[in-house]
Protein backbone atom coordinates (compact mmCIF):
# COMPACT_ATOMS: atom_id res chain seq x y z
CA UNK A 1 0.00 0.00 0.00
CA UNK A 2 1.43 3.29 -1.01
CA UNK A 3 0.73 6.84 0.03
CA UNK A 4 0.98 9.77 -2.33
CA UNK A 5 3.28 12.68 -1.86
CA UNK A 6 3.38 15.92 -3.78
CA UNK A 7 6.77 17.35 -4.69
CA UNK A 8 7.20 20.98 -5.63
CA UNK A 9 10.24 22.56 -7.30
CA UNK A 10 11.41 25.66 -5.48
CA UNK A 11 13.92 28.04 -6.91
CA UNK A 12 16.36 29.30 -4.34
CA UNK A 13 15.00 32.78 -3.83
CA UNK A 14 13.11 34.41 -1.04
CA UNK A 15 9.37 34.04 -0.78
CA UNK A 16 8.95 30.89 -2.83
CA UNK A 17 8.00 28.60 0.05
CA UNK A 18 5.70 31.29 1.40
CA UNK A 19 4.03 31.44 -2.00
CA UNK A 20 3.35 27.68 -2.02
CA UNK A 21 1.84 27.93 1.44
CA UNK A 22 -0.30 30.88 0.42
CA UNK A 23 -1.66 28.98 -2.60
CA UNK A 24 -2.39 25.85 -0.56
CA UNK A 25 -3.89 27.82 2.32
CA UNK A 26 -6.19 29.77 0.02
CA UNK A 27 -7.44 26.45 -1.40
CA UNK A 28 -8.15 25.13 2.10
CA UNK A 29 -5.58 22.39 1.81
CA UNK A 30 -4.05 21.06 4.97
CA UNK A 31 -0.53 19.71 5.19
CA UNK A 32 0.09 16.72 7.40
CA UNK A 33 3.81 16.30 6.89
CA UNK A 34 6.53 18.04 4.95
CA UNK A 35 10.21 18.08 4.26
CA UNK A 36 12.48 20.19 2.11
CA UNK A 37 15.54 18.94 0.32
CA UNK A 38 17.85 21.80 -0.50
CA UNK A 39 20.91 22.41 -2.63
CA UNK A 40 22.66 25.71 -3.18
CA UNK A 41 20.50 26.43 -6.24
CA UNK A 42 17.12 24.90 -5.63
CA UNK A 43 14.92 23.03 -3.21
CA UNK A 44 12.33 20.30 -3.43
CA UNK A 45 9.36 20.62 -1.13
CA UNK A 46 7.71 17.30 -0.33
CA UNK A 47 4.31 17.33 1.28
CA UNK A 48 1.54 14.97 2.34
CA UNK A 49 -1.79 16.76 2.13
CA UNK A 50 -5.47 16.03 2.76
CA UNK A 51 -6.55 16.64 -0.86
CA UNK A 52 -3.74 15.82 -3.26
CA UNK A 53 -5.70 16.31 -6.49
CA UNK A 54 -6.79 19.77 -5.53
CA UNK A 55 -3.30 20.61 -4.28
CA UNK A 56 -1.78 19.53 -7.61
CA UNK A 57 -4.33 21.53 -9.55
CA UNK A 58 -3.90 24.79 -7.65
CA UNK A 59 -0.12 24.57 -7.65
CA UNK A 60 -0.06 23.97 -11.41
CA UNK A 61 -2.43 26.87 -11.93
CA UNK A 62 0.10 29.02 -10.15
CA UNK A 63 2.95 27.88 -12.43
CA UNK A 64 4.70 25.61 -9.99
CA UNK A 65 6.39 22.47 -11.29
CA UNK A 66 4.90 19.62 -9.33
CA UNK A 67 4.91 15.85 -9.36
CA UNK A 68 3.14 13.08 -7.58
CA UNK A 69 5.28 10.37 -6.05
CA UNK A 70 4.47 7.11 -4.32
CA UNK A 71 5.94 6.95 -0.87
CA UNK A 72 5.50 4.46 1.97
CA UNK A 73 4.08 5.61 5.28
CA UNK A 74 5.09 3.33 8.11
CA UNK A 75 3.71 3.41 11.61
CA UNK A 76 6.33 2.87 14.30
CA UNK A 77 6.13 3.06 18.08
CA UNK A 78 7.24 6.46 19.36
CA UNK A 79 9.86 4.91 21.60
CA UNK A 80 13.62 4.32 21.55
CA UNK A 81 14.63 1.89 18.84
CA UNK A 82 11.40 2.23 16.87
CA UNK A 83 13.01 3.39 13.63
CA UNK A 84 16.10 1.29 14.12
CA UNK A 85 14.11 -1.94 13.92
CA UNK A 86 12.53 -0.94 10.61
CA UNK A 87 15.84 0.09 9.07
CA UNK A 88 17.50 -3.16 10.14
CA UNK A 89 14.80 -5.13 8.38
CA UNK A 90 15.28 -3.17 5.18
CA UNK A 91 19.05 -3.23 5.38
CA UNK A 92 19.00 -7.02 5.66
CA UNK A 93 17.26 -7.12 2.28
CA UNK A 94 19.45 -4.39 0.76
CA UNK A 95 16.66 -1.88 0.31
CA UNK A 96 17.98 1.70 0.20
CA UNK A 97 16.31 4.76 1.64
CA UNK A 98 16.31 7.67 -0.83
CA UNK A 99 14.90 10.06 1.75
CA UNK A 100 12.53 10.08 4.70
CA UNK A 101 10.75 12.33 7.13
CA UNK A 102 8.53 11.77 10.13
CA UNK A 103 5.74 13.14 12.26
CA UNK A 104 3.99 12.12 15.47
CA UNK A 105 0.40 10.89 15.44
CA UNK A 106 -2.09 13.00 17.31
CA UNK A 107 -4.26 10.23 18.70
CA UNK A 108 -1.79 7.49 19.58
CA UNK A 109 1.71 6.73 20.90
CA UNK A 110 3.00 6.12 17.40
CA UNK A 111 5.03 8.06 14.88
CA UNK A 112 4.58 7.90 11.14
CA UNK A 113 7.64 7.77 8.93
CA UNK A 114 7.36 8.64 5.27
CA UNK A 115 9.88 6.70 3.21
CA UNK A 116 11.01 6.90 -0.37
CA UNK A 117 12.93 3.72 -1.22
CA UNK A 118 14.91 2.80 -4.30
CA UNK A 119 12.64 -0.25 -4.57
CA UNK A 120 9.27 0.61 -3.07
CA UNK A 121 7.59 -2.73 -3.87
CA UNK A 122 10.32 -4.79 -2.34
CA UNK A 123 10.22 -2.57 0.75
CA UNK A 124 6.48 -3.13 1.13
CA UNK A 125 6.96 -6.87 0.91
CA UNK A 126 9.69 -6.83 3.56
CA UNK A 127 7.70 -4.62 5.91
CA UNK A 128 4.44 -6.52 5.50
CA UNK A 129 6.13 -9.86 6.19
CA UNK A 130 7.45 -8.41 9.43
CA UNK A 131 3.95 -7.28 10.40
CA UNK A 132 4.73 -3.56 10.21
CA UNK A 133 1.73 -1.28 9.65
CA UNK A 134 1.76 0.57 6.36
CA UNK A 135 -0.70 3.43 5.97
CA UNK A 136 -2.60 4.71 2.96
CA UNK A 137 -2.98 8.43 2.27
CA UNK A 138 -6.43 8.45 3.85
CA UNK A 139 -5.24 6.56 6.92
CA UNK A 140 -2.40 9.03 7.46
CA UNK A 141 -5.04 11.70 7.83
CA UNK A 142 -7.09 9.80 10.38
CA UNK A 143 -4.21 9.28 12.78
Amino acid at each position, binding site marked *: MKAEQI*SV*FLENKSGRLAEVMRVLGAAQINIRALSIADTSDFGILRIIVNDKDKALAVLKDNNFTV*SKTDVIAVEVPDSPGGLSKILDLLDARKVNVEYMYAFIERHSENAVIIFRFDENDKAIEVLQKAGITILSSQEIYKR
Partner: protein
Amino acid sequence: MIWNQEFETLPREALESLQLKRLQATVNRVYATVPFYKKKFDELGLKPAHIKSLKDMRLLPFTVKTDLRDNYPFGLFSVPMSSVVRVHASSGTTGKPIVVGYTRRDIDTWAELMARTLTAAGIHQGDIVHNAYGYGLFTGGLGAHYGAERVGASVVPISGGNTKRQIMILKDFGPTAITCTPSYALHLADVARDMGIDPSRDFKLRVGCFGAEAWSENMRHQIEKTFNIDAIDIFGLTEVIGPGVSSECLEAKNGLHVFEDHFIPEIIDPETGEPLPPGEKGELVFTSITKEAFPVIRYRTRDLTRLNPEQCVCGRTFLRMERITGRTDDMLIIRGVNVFPSQIESALLQIEGLEPHYQIIVDRKDNLDTIELLVEVNEKIFSDKVKKLEVIEKRVVHDIKEMFGVSCKCKLVEPKTIARSEGKAQRVIDKRKI
Protein backbone atom coordinates in the same frame (compact mmCIF):
# COMPACT_ATOMS: atom_id res chain seq x y z
CA MET B 1 58.87 49.58 -36.52
CA ILE B 2 57.98 47.98 -39.82
CA TRP B 3 58.80 44.37 -40.69
CA ASN B 4 58.33 44.51 -44.46
CA GLN B 5 59.18 48.05 -45.46
CA GLU B 6 58.59 47.40 -49.16
CA PHE B 7 55.08 46.00 -48.98
CA GLU B 8 53.76 47.74 -45.88
CA THR B 9 54.49 51.17 -47.30
CA LEU B 10 53.61 50.57 -50.97
CA PRO B 11 52.11 53.65 -52.60
CA ARG B 12 48.35 53.12 -52.90
CA GLU B 13 48.44 52.92 -56.67
CA ALA B 14 51.06 50.19 -56.71
CA LEU B 15 49.24 48.40 -53.89
CA GLU B 16 45.97 48.47 -55.79
CA SER B 17 47.49 47.10 -58.98
CA LEU B 18 49.12 44.33 -56.93
CA GLN B 19 45.74 43.62 -55.29
CA LEU B 20 44.03 43.38 -58.66
CA LYS B 21 46.64 40.99 -60.03
CA ARG B 22 46.38 38.78 -56.95
CA LEU B 23 42.58 38.98 -56.86
CA GLN B 24 42.34 37.86 -60.47
CA ALA B 25 44.69 34.96 -59.78
CA THR B 26 42.60 33.94 -56.75
CA VAL B 27 39.32 34.16 -58.66
CA ASN B 28 40.77 32.04 -61.45
CA ARG B 29 42.06 29.52 -58.97
CA VAL B 30 38.81 29.07 -57.01
CA TYR B 31 36.75 28.90 -60.20
CA ALA B 32 38.95 26.13 -61.51
CA THR B 33 39.46 24.15 -58.31
CA VAL B 34 36.55 24.63 -55.89
CA PRO B 35 33.19 23.33 -57.16
CA PHE B 36 31.34 25.44 -54.57
CA TYR B 37 32.71 28.68 -56.03
CA LYS B 38 32.31 27.53 -59.64
CA LYS B 39 28.63 26.81 -58.99
CA LYS B 40 28.10 30.18 -57.34
CA PHE B 41 29.84 32.02 -60.20
CA ASP B 42 27.89 30.08 -62.83
CA GLU B 43 24.58 30.86 -61.13
CA LEU B 44 25.43 34.54 -61.44
CA GLY B 45 26.69 34.13 -65.01
CA LEU B 46 30.04 35.39 -63.78
CA LYS B 47 33.36 34.41 -65.34
CA PRO B 48 36.76 35.13 -63.77
CA ALA B 49 37.52 37.29 -66.83
CA HIS B 50 34.77 39.71 -65.76
CA ILE B 51 36.94 40.92 -62.90
CA LYS B 52 38.83 43.68 -64.67
CA SER B 53 39.28 46.19 -61.86
CA LEU B 54 39.00 46.29 -58.09
CA LYS B 55 35.60 47.93 -58.53
CA ASP B 56 34.40 44.66 -60.09
CA MET B 57 34.74 43.04 -56.67
CA ARG B 58 31.11 43.85 -56.10
CA LEU B 59 30.20 41.35 -58.83
CA LEU B 60 31.62 38.50 -56.76
CA PRO B 61 29.27 36.44 -54.61
CA PHE B 62 29.49 36.59 -50.81
CA THR B 63 30.59 33.64 -48.74
CA VAL B 64 28.99 33.14 -45.33
CA LYS B 65 29.74 30.99 -42.33
CA THR B 66 27.10 28.40 -43.21
CA ASP B 67 28.77 27.91 -46.63
CA LEU B 68 31.92 26.92 -44.78
CA ARG B 69 30.01 24.60 -42.50
CA ASP B 70 28.07 23.02 -45.36
CA ASN B 71 31.37 22.07 -46.97
CA TYR B 72 32.77 20.53 -43.79
CA PRO B 73 35.46 19.43 -43.45
CA PHE B 74 37.63 19.96 -46.54
CA GLY B 75 35.12 20.87 -49.27
CA LEU B 76 36.40 24.39 -49.86
CA PHE B 77 40.07 23.49 -50.09
CA SER B 78 41.54 24.60 -53.37
CA VAL B 79 44.51 22.21 -53.34
CA PRO B 80 44.70 18.42 -52.88
CA MET B 81 45.25 17.25 -49.30
CA SER B 82 48.75 16.19 -50.28
CA SER B 83 49.62 19.90 -50.53
CA VAL B 84 48.04 20.76 -47.17
CA VAL B 85 50.58 20.79 -44.36
CA ARG B 86 48.32 22.01 -41.56
CA VAL B 87 44.67 22.33 -40.62
CA HIS B 88 43.09 24.56 -38.01
CA ALA B 89 39.48 24.92 -36.95
CA SER B 90 37.22 27.39 -35.26
CA SER B 91 34.08 26.59 -33.37
CA GLY B 92 31.15 26.72 -35.77
CA THR B 93 27.43 26.38 -35.25
CA THR B 94 25.89 23.22 -33.84
CA GLY B 95 28.99 21.31 -33.03
CA LYS B 96 30.73 21.12 -36.39
CA PRO B 97 33.74 23.41 -36.56
CA ILE B 98 34.89 25.45 -39.55
CA VAL B 99 37.99 23.74 -40.90
CA VAL B 100 40.70 25.61 -42.77
CA GLY B 101 43.87 24.35 -44.45
CA TYR B 102 47.32 25.77 -45.12
CA THR B 103 49.93 24.89 -47.72
CA ARG B 104 53.59 25.28 -46.86
CA ARG B 105 53.47 28.68 -48.54
CA ASP B 106 50.36 29.68 -46.57
CA ILE B 107 52.18 28.89 -43.32
CA ASP B 108 55.05 31.02 -44.57
CA THR B 109 52.66 33.88 -45.43
CA TRP B 110 51.04 33.59 -42.03
CA ALA B 111 54.40 33.74 -40.24
CA GLU B 112 55.23 36.84 -42.29
CA LEU B 113 51.92 38.49 -41.35
CA MET B 114 52.37 37.70 -37.66
CA ALA B 115 55.95 38.97 -37.88
CA ARG B 116 54.49 42.23 -39.22
CA THR B 117 51.96 42.27 -36.39
CA LEU B 118 54.53 41.74 -33.65
CA THR B 119 56.95 44.20 -35.26
CA ALA B 120 54.18 46.80 -35.39
CA ALA B 121 53.99 46.36 -31.60
CA GLY B 122 57.74 46.90 -31.34
CA ILE B 123 58.65 43.25 -30.72
CA HIS B 124 62.03 42.23 -32.17
CA GLN B 125 64.92 39.84 -31.92
CA GLY B 126 66.11 39.79 -28.32
CA ASP B 127 62.59 39.91 -26.93
CA ILE B 128 61.20 36.98 -24.98
CA VAL B 129 57.56 36.40 -25.95
CA HIS B 130 55.23 34.76 -23.44
CA ASN B 131 52.63 33.29 -25.79
CA ALA B 132 49.52 32.47 -23.77
CA TYR B 133 47.18 32.04 -26.71
CA GLY B 134 45.89 28.46 -26.80
CA TYR B 135 47.85 26.02 -28.94
CA GLY B 136 45.90 23.48 -30.93
CA LEU B 137 43.14 23.74 -33.50
CA PHE B 138 42.67 27.37 -32.40
CA THR B 139 44.78 29.61 -34.63
CA GLY B 140 45.92 31.97 -31.87
CA GLY B 141 48.72 29.95 -30.30
CA LEU B 142 50.55 28.68 -33.38
CA GLY B 143 49.91 31.91 -35.30
CA ALA B 144 51.65 34.05 -32.70
CA HIS B 145 54.31 31.39 -32.22
CA TYR B 146 55.42 31.35 -35.85
CA GLY B 147 55.40 35.14 -36.03
CA ALA B 148 57.53 35.49 -32.91
CA GLU B 149 60.03 32.96 -34.24
CA ARG B 150 60.08 34.78 -37.57
CA VAL B 151 61.13 38.06 -35.96
CA GLY B 152 63.80 36.13 -34.06
CA ALA B 153 62.32 36.52 -30.60
CA SER B 154 62.57 33.73 -28.01
CA VAL B 155 59.16 32.12 -27.66
CA VAL B 156 57.78 30.70 -24.43
CA PRO B 157 54.96 28.48 -25.80
CA ILE B 158 53.03 28.44 -22.54
CA SER B 159 49.56 28.20 -24.17
CA GLY B 160 46.46 28.90 -22.07
CA GLY B 161 45.56 27.83 -18.55
CA ASN B 162 47.53 26.82 -15.46
CA THR B 163 47.62 30.45 -14.44
CA LYS B 164 49.77 30.13 -11.30
CA ARG B 165 52.48 28.41 -13.27
CA GLN B 166 52.25 31.18 -15.87
CA ILE B 167 52.88 33.76 -13.13
CA MET B 168 55.95 31.86 -11.97
CA ILE B 169 57.30 31.76 -15.53
CA LEU B 170 56.47 35.44 -16.13
CA LYS B 171 58.52 36.25 -13.03
CA ASP B 172 61.40 33.82 -13.55
CA PHE B 173 61.87 33.90 -17.36
CA GLY B 174 61.43 37.65 -17.56
CA PRO B 175 59.56 37.83 -20.87
CA THR B 176 59.44 41.31 -22.40
CA ALA B 177 56.30 40.73 -24.46
CA ILE B 178 53.06 38.86 -23.91
CA THR B 179 50.43 37.59 -26.34
CA CYS B 180 47.01 36.49 -25.09
CA THR B 181 43.39 37.57 -24.93
CA PRO B 182 42.90 40.89 -23.13
CA SER B 183 40.66 39.32 -20.51
CA TYR B 184 43.22 36.65 -19.76
CA ALA B 185 45.87 39.35 -19.28
CA LEU B 186 43.77 40.95 -16.57
CA HIS B 187 43.09 37.56 -15.03
CA LEU B 188 46.85 36.92 -14.90
CA ALA B 189 47.25 40.22 -13.07
CA ASP B 190 44.59 39.27 -10.51
CA VAL B 191 46.20 35.92 -9.83
CA ALA B 192 49.65 37.53 -9.63
CA ARG B 193 48.43 39.95 -6.98
CA ASP B 194 46.92 37.07 -5.01
CA MET B 195 50.37 35.51 -5.05
CA GLY B 196 51.88 38.72 -3.68
CA ILE B 197 53.35 39.73 -7.04
CA ASP B 198 52.93 43.24 -8.41
CA PRO B 199 52.42 42.91 -12.19
CA SER B 200 53.47 46.52 -12.77
CA ARG B 201 56.86 46.04 -11.06
CA ASP B 202 57.78 42.39 -10.76
CA PHE B 203 57.61 41.51 -14.47
CA LYS B 204 59.88 42.75 -17.26
CA LEU B 205 57.03 43.04 -19.77
CA ARG B 206 57.18 46.01 -22.13
CA VAL B 207 54.39 45.29 -24.57
CA GLY B 208 51.46 42.96 -25.19
CA CYS B 209 49.52 41.97 -28.32
CA PHE B 210 45.92 41.27 -27.42
CA GLY B 211 43.11 39.95 -29.58
CA ALA B 212 40.61 37.16 -30.25
CA GLU B 213 37.88 39.01 -28.37
CA ALA B 214 36.28 42.43 -28.26
CA TRP B 215 37.80 44.92 -25.88
CA SER B 216 37.61 48.63 -25.33
CA GLU B 217 39.85 51.64 -24.97
CA ASN B 218 39.11 51.57 -21.23
CA MET B 219 40.32 48.02 -21.00
CA ARG B 220 43.48 49.02 -22.87
CA HIS B 221 44.19 51.70 -20.27
CA GLN B 222 43.53 49.23 -17.50
CA ILE B 223 45.93 46.64 -18.97
CA GLU B 224 48.60 49.26 -19.69
CA LYS B 225 48.43 50.58 -16.14
CA THR B 226 48.24 47.16 -14.53
CA PHE B 227 51.33 45.79 -16.26
CA ASN B 228 53.03 49.07 -17.06
CA ILE B 229 53.17 48.09 -20.75
CA ASP B 230 51.90 49.16 -24.16
CA ALA B 231 48.81 47.19 -25.13
CA ILE B 232 48.28 46.62 -28.85
CA ASP B 233 45.06 45.43 -30.48
CA ILE B 234 45.48 42.66 -33.05
CA PHE B 235 42.81 41.07 -35.22
CA GLY B 236 42.23 37.99 -37.27
CA LEU B 237 39.82 35.19 -37.89
CA THR B 238 40.33 31.55 -38.65
CA GLU B 239 38.27 31.72 -41.85
CA VAL B 240 40.63 34.29 -43.32
CA ILE B 241 43.96 33.03 -41.92
CA GLY B 242 43.92 33.41 -38.12
CA PRO B 243 45.60 36.30 -36.29
CA GLY B 244 47.62 38.48 -38.64
CA VAL B 245 44.79 39.99 -40.69
CA SER B 246 45.24 43.43 -39.16
CA SER B 247 47.12 45.06 -36.33
CA GLU B 248 47.57 48.37 -34.60
CA CYS B 249 50.92 50.09 -34.67
CA LEU B 250 52.75 51.22 -31.55
CA GLU B 251 53.17 54.70 -33.01
CA ALA B 252 49.47 55.55 -33.33
CA LYS B 253 47.51 52.89 -31.43
CA ASN B 254 44.59 54.14 -33.43
CA GLY B 255 43.01 51.60 -35.74
CA LEU B 256 44.27 48.30 -37.07
CA HIS B 257 46.24 48.27 -40.34
CA VAL B 258 44.78 45.64 -42.65
CA PHE B 259 47.52 43.75 -44.46
CA GLU B 260 45.99 44.70 -47.77
CA ASP B 261 48.58 43.06 -49.96
CA HIS B 262 47.07 39.75 -48.72
CA PHE B 263 43.47 40.59 -47.87
CA ILE B 264 41.03 43.02 -49.46
CA PRO B 265 38.64 44.47 -46.91
CA GLU B 266 35.24 45.88 -47.78
CA ILE B 267 32.51 47.46 -45.69
CA ILE B 268 28.99 46.59 -46.79
CA ASP B 269 25.50 47.42 -45.70
CA PRO B 270 24.55 44.23 -43.81
CA GLU B 271 20.93 44.53 -45.00
CA THR B 272 21.42 45.14 -48.72
CA GLY B 273 24.94 43.76 -49.24
CA GLU B 274 25.88 46.98 -51.08
CA PRO B 275 29.45 48.26 -50.55
CA LEU B 276 29.60 51.43 -48.43
CA PRO B 277 31.90 54.38 -49.08
CA PRO B 278 35.13 54.73 -47.04
CA GLY B 279 34.54 55.86 -43.48
CA GLU B 280 31.03 54.48 -43.16
CA LYS B 281 30.22 51.89 -40.61
CA GLY B 282 28.98 48.49 -41.74
CA GLU B 283 29.81 44.82 -41.96
CA LEU B 284 33.41 43.87 -42.58
CA VAL B 285 34.03 41.56 -45.55
CA PHE B 286 37.34 39.95 -46.51
CA THR B 287 38.69 38.43 -49.69
CA SER B 288 42.00 36.63 -49.36
CA ILE B 289 44.25 37.16 -52.38
CA THR B 290 47.33 35.10 -51.65
CA LYS B 291 46.08 32.04 -49.84
CA GLU B 292 46.53 28.72 -51.60
CA ALA B 293 44.78 26.00 -49.61
CA PHE B 294 41.78 27.93 -48.33
CA PRO B 295 41.04 31.14 -50.21
CA VAL B 296 37.85 32.98 -49.29
CA ILE B 297 35.88 35.24 -51.61
CA ARG B 298 34.02 38.12 -49.96
CA TYR B 299 33.67 36.39 -46.62
CA ARG B 300 31.11 38.14 -44.43
CA THR B 301 32.61 38.39 -40.94
CA ARG B 302 29.42 39.71 -39.29
CA ASP B 303 31.72 42.13 -37.45
CA LEU B 304 30.75 45.80 -37.54
CA THR B 305 33.42 48.43 -38.04
CA ARG B 306 34.57 51.17 -40.43
CA LEU B 307 37.70 51.65 -42.54
CA ASN B 308 39.86 54.72 -42.23
CA PRO B 309 41.81 55.64 -45.41
CA GLU B 310 43.87 58.42 -43.78
CA GLN B 311 47.63 57.99 -43.92
CA CYS B 312 49.03 56.86 -40.55
CA VAL B 313 51.99 58.45 -38.73
CA CYS B 314 53.77 55.07 -38.79
CA GLY B 315 54.27 55.24 -42.55
CA ARG B 316 52.14 52.24 -43.47
CA THR B 317 49.87 52.89 -46.42
CA PHE B 318 47.33 50.26 -45.41
CA LEU B 319 43.77 51.19 -44.47
CA ARG B 320 43.00 51.06 -40.80
CA MET B 321 39.92 49.35 -39.42
CA GLU B 322 38.39 50.58 -36.21
CA ARG B 323 38.05 48.31 -33.24
CA ILE B 324 35.18 45.91 -33.76
CA THR B 325 32.19 47.54 -32.11
CA GLY B 326 29.54 44.90 -32.57
CA ARG B 327 28.16 42.12 -34.67
CA THR B 328 25.29 41.69 -37.08
CA ASP B 329 24.42 38.33 -35.54
CA ASP B 330 24.05 37.05 -32.00
CA MET B 331 27.45 35.40 -31.74
CA LEU B 332 29.08 35.73 -28.33
CA ILE B 333 32.81 35.59 -27.81
CA ILE B 334 33.51 33.86 -24.51
CA ARG B 335 37.17 33.74 -23.54
CA GLY B 336 38.08 33.97 -27.19
CA VAL B 337 35.72 31.14 -28.18
CA ASN B 338 32.89 31.85 -30.62
CA VAL B 339 29.59 30.82 -29.12
CA PHE B 340 26.20 31.04 -30.76
CA PRO B 341 23.13 30.91 -28.52
CA SER B 342 21.71 28.39 -31.00
CA GLN B 343 24.57 26.01 -30.19
CA ILE B 344 23.78 26.22 -26.50
CA GLU B 345 20.14 25.64 -27.29
CA SER B 346 20.87 22.52 -29.32
CA ALA B 347 23.07 21.19 -26.51
CA LEU B 348 20.22 21.72 -24.04
CA LEU B 349 17.67 20.07 -26.28
CA GLN B 350 19.79 16.94 -26.48
CA ILE B 351 18.75 16.34 -22.89
CA GLU B 352 15.52 14.44 -22.84
CA GLY B 353 12.57 16.37 -21.52
CA LEU B 354 14.28 19.75 -21.54
CA GLU B 355 12.33 22.49 -23.26
CA PRO B 356 13.91 25.52 -24.88
CA HIS B 357 13.12 27.80 -21.99
CA TYR B 358 16.54 29.00 -21.00
CA GLN B 359 18.58 32.11 -20.57
CA ILE B 360 22.27 32.65 -21.09
CA ILE B 361 23.85 35.10 -18.70
CA VAL B 362 27.33 36.20 -19.67
CA ASP B 363 29.37 38.12 -17.18
CA ARG B 364 32.98 38.89 -16.43
CA LYS B 365 34.23 38.04 -12.95
CA ASP B 366 37.84 38.61 -11.94
CA ASN B 367 38.39 39.47 -15.61
CA LEU B 368 37.27 36.07 -16.84
CA ASP B 369 34.14 35.57 -18.87
CA THR B 370 31.55 33.41 -17.18
CA ILE B 371 28.43 31.76 -18.55
CA GLU B 372 25.47 30.92 -16.40
CA LEU B 373 22.61 28.99 -17.93
CA LEU B 374 19.20 29.33 -16.38
CA VAL B 375 17.02 26.41 -17.35
CA GLU B 376 13.36 26.17 -16.48
CA VAL B 377 12.27 22.97 -14.77
CA ASN B 378 9.24 21.33 -16.29
CA GLU B 379 7.30 18.26 -15.18
CA LYS B 380 9.18 15.97 -17.54
CA ILE B 381 12.51 16.56 -15.89
CA PHE B 382 11.30 17.31 -12.39
CA SER B 383 11.78 14.63 -9.79
CA ASP B 384 11.25 14.34 -6.06
CA LYS B 385 14.89 13.27 -5.87
CA VAL B 386 17.61 15.90 -5.63
CA LYS B 387 20.06 13.57 -7.33
CA LYS B 388 18.08 13.44 -10.58
CA LEU B 389 17.95 17.21 -10.90
CA GLU B 390 21.62 17.53 -10.07
CA VAL B 391 22.42 15.02 -12.80
CA ILE B 392 20.70 17.32 -15.30
CA GLU B 393 22.69 20.33 -14.10
CA LYS B 394 25.93 18.38 -14.33
CA ARG B 395 25.07 17.07 -17.79
CA VAL B 396 24.45 20.61 -19.07
CA VAL B 397 27.78 21.82 -17.64
CA HIS B 398 29.58 18.82 -19.12
CA ASP B 399 28.02 19.14 -22.58
CA ILE B 400 28.81 22.86 -22.82
CA LYS B 401 32.38 22.21 -21.73
CA GLU B 402 32.70 19.47 -24.37
CA MET B 403 31.33 21.75 -27.05
CA PHE B 404 33.22 24.98 -26.38
CA GLY B 405 35.93 24.10 -23.88
CA VAL B 406 34.38 26.71 -21.61
CA SER B 407 33.10 26.00 -18.13
CA CYS B 408 29.65 27.21 -17.27
CA LYS B 409 27.23 27.13 -14.39
CA CYS B 410 23.75 25.70 -14.75
CA LYS B 411 20.93 26.81 -12.53
CA LEU B 412 17.48 25.27 -12.58
CA VAL B 413 14.71 27.80 -12.19
CA GLU B 414 10.95 27.68 -11.83
CA PRO B 415 8.82 27.69 -14.97
CA LYS B 416 7.87 31.00 -16.52
CA THR B 417 10.47 32.87 -14.49
CA ILE B 418 12.57 33.70 -17.54
CA ALA B 419 11.23 36.99 -18.82
CA ARG B 420 9.29 36.66 -22.05
CA SER B 421 8.79 39.80 -24.01
CA GLU B 422 6.00 39.66 -26.58
CA GLY B 423 6.07 35.91 -26.32
CA LYS B 424 9.75 35.77 -27.22
CA ALA B 425 12.23 35.12 -24.46
CA GLN B 426 15.31 37.24 -24.10
CA ARG B 427 17.90 34.52 -24.56
CA VAL B 428 21.09 36.32 -23.79
CA ILE B 429 21.93 38.79 -21.08
CA ASP B 430 25.44 40.09 -21.51
CA LYS B 431 26.45 41.87 -18.33
CA ARG B 432 30.08 42.33 -19.36
CA LYS B 433 31.26 45.89 -19.25
CA ILE B 434 33.86 45.85 -21.97
